[in-house]
């Protein structure tokens, strides 16, 4: 208010020319302020409703993948079918089928019996096999087997196969539905939380497919990305901001780094394909190569964020430290860097979160392969979360529709966690300093 000419704008000063002009325009100014506020609010509401629709539709189709229909059945491990010295080979599927047949004695035709056996997921026989191999004493005994149901029955239980649909157009015919209902009435069908979604690797059977391979692959890729991009990025930023002479060369480098941050990620994928896999002969589909690619992509983001954080440290701190005799290097590492840390961390974590969700470069280096085991090192072949979503979205089986949404929710969960950590660290460091 102090720099408004002719000072007084109070209600009593009507005779003043300036204040008359101000008062005449007041209504218009209030109005435009109101419009600006309303526009801002509308923008936020629009963005928020879009987010709500996205999350809503994902939850709507994905929540069903977080449970899995199981069957619990007493199974007699028949010594005629499974012999100790032939393990791990044996008629485990026949043993499971026999347990079901015992409940449906009216099923006599061979083809029909086989169909009945398909209530069990294909994975059930391998679970039973592993149990028997671990403890051969089970042969000849009756054990309780808890196994996932195969996908069509799972869909039926979740209401995704509708009973009203005409029989010919349904994946399950009336007889199969009757089997399921009979088992359900006896209380053998349960729908527990689907831990397999996190503990299994990929599978061609939706009821067995899980994200373990993708989670571990993403972990290795991000670790590699972190180890390479963070020290290099922060180092480059410190040099450019604190030590580099200001001349044409450093200007050129700065412009290039800013441009690099805007390069589409698929370009980095092509680069990685040509350089890492083509020239250096690194393995395809390895999370390590994925991590290197993501590091190339994340580095400019980290450099830019770090430079901004370093710039925000007041010059008085540097001058005071230099004044009491600290060396340039001591100033940077003991005074400037700790103060810039919250900003650096935020930038780094947001850069890494971006890398976690990146798909295109990973597709080019073959991280969209089908692998039924999780990687045990960064050099084993693996998928990553976003590429796993890509594979599942392309699978014909119905069960993968909800699993795709569930995988997206898991990915969103990780992104939210990472951003929350960024916020937490920023607050913590700010309080300490």
């Amino acid at each position, binding site marked *: 208010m102090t720099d408004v000419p002719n000072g007084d704008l109070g209600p009593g000063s009507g005779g003043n020319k300036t204040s008359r002009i101000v008062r005449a325009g007041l209504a218009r100014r209030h109005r435009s302020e109101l419009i600006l506020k309303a526009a801002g609010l509308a923008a936020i509401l629009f963005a928020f409703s879009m987010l709500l629709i996205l999350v809503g539709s994902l939850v709507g189709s994905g929540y069903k993948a977080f449970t899995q229909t199981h069957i619990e059945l007493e199974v007699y491990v028949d010594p005629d079918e499974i012999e100790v010295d032939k393990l*791990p080979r044996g008629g485990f599927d026949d043993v499971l089928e026999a347990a079901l047949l015992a409940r449906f004695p009216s099923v006599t035709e061979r083809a029909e019996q086989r169909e009945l056996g398909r209530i069990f997921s294909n994975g059930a026989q*391998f679970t039973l096999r592993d149990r028997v191999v671990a403890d051969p004493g089970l042969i000849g005994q009756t054990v309780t087997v808890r196994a996932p149901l195969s996908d069509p029955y799972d869909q039926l239980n979740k209401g995704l*196969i*509708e009973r009203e*649909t005409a029989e010919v*157009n*349904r*994946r399950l015919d009336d007889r199969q539905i009757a089997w399921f209902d009979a088992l359900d009435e006896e209380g053998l069908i349960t729908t527990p939380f689907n831990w397999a979604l996190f503990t299994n*690797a990929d*599978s*061609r*059977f939706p009821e067995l497919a899980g994200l373990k391979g993708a989670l571990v692959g993403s972990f290795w890729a991000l670790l*590699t990305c972190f*180890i*390479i991009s*963070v*020290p*290099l990025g*922060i*180092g480059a930023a410190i040099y450019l901001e604190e030590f580099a002479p200001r001349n044409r060369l450093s200007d050129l480098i700065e412009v290039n780094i800013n441009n690099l941050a805007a390069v589409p990620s698929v370009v980095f994928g092509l680069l990685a394909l040509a350089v890492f896999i083509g020239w*250096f*002969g*690194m*393995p*395809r*589909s*390895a999370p*390590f190569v994925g991590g290197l690619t993501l590091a190339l992509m994340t580095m400019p983001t980290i450099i830019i964020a770090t430079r901004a954080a370093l710039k925000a440290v007041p010059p008085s701190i540097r001058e005071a430290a230099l004044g009491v005799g600290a060396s340039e290097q001591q100033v940077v590492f003991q005074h400037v860097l700790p103060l810039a840390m919250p900003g650096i961390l935020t930038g780094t974590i947001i850069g890494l979160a971006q890398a976690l969700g990146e798909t295109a470069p990973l597709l080019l280096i*073959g991280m*969209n*392969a*089908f*692998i*039924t*085991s999780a990687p045990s*090192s960064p*050099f084993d*072949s693996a998928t990553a979360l976003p590429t796993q979503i890509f*594979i599942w*979205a*392309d*699978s*014909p*089986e*119905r069960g993968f*529709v909800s699993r795709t949404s569930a995988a997206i929710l898991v990915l969103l969960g990780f992104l939210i966690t990472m951003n929350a950590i960024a916020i937490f660290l920023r607050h913590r460091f700010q309080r300490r300093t």
Partner: protein
Amino acid sequence: MSYVKFSTSALSVLALCATAAVARDEIRIVGSSTVFPYTQAVAEQFSNNTGAPSPVVESTGTGGGMQIFCGGIGEAHPDLTGASRAMKKSEYDLCVTNGVTDITEALIGFDGLSMAISRSNDFDWDVTLPEIYLALAAQVPVDGEWADNPYTTWDQINPELPAVEILAYGPPPTSGTRDAWVELAMWAGCEELDFVKDGGFDGDWVEENCSRMRTDGPFVEAGENDNLIVQRLDADPNAMGIFGYSFLYENLDNLKGVMINGVEPNSDTIADKSYPVSRPLYFYVKNAHRGVIPNLQEFVEEYMSDDALEQGGYLSERGLVSLEAERMEALQTAVIDGENMSAPE
């Protein structure tokens, strides 16, 4: 000084990678997205049965797979590639140039290509191949002239068909499915047109003039994701989709197959070839890798086993249509023994 520590560890990881790139104990497979689900099934069954490291299966498309497969011999190159058509002469030459001379070709079965429409469409669609050609090709005969396709609704082609806009979603040119569709449906339809029959045009002419799909709207390239096409058909009852039979089979509650020449697509009609649009599926093995890459021979044996290939085997559950028994037996021994293929024509 964590900065220094970080940099040294980064460098040491880099150095490690050079050594890790050498050893490989899992089988690597690339190739067609149509063969992908079948190879997936064999890979999973194989690693479950034997406990061997699970093979790495990548879906790259037939052409892309051939490029990588023919890149050379050695652990850096894949051992198998899937293909939804036979290997071309140019691809075989590329292989030979790069030292991949001993290749075994394995025909695993047939896959139907289906045209499907939403169940909410009431009409019983039954079209002939020439009608499909007239609806979807870029150039058709108009009043005795070879001209741009003028048709916009089905009843303009055949008055018995409904008066709805022609709209079909199909695969892009990079897809093996598209190649197969053009070859099996479009060329065949083109050859049956009176204009072509009476004009005395030969196969080369057909190949040259009947391969282009129209680009003025009625045919929409919908990308490689077939599930996306399925969703669009749900939304628009008059739209048709072109994709592999397995996608129709999985979505039979919402979609129905369009009959072609009066034959509905299902596993029986594809097997006995009465459904005209079906294609062979192959995989190719590098024989130089057998015995070098652990478990490769065993994997090929699993792929060619009766369990997998015969009618009712686990591949037919996924939509593969098996070969007739005699032919299959001959192929099984040939592939397991590693007979080399001869250069394609």
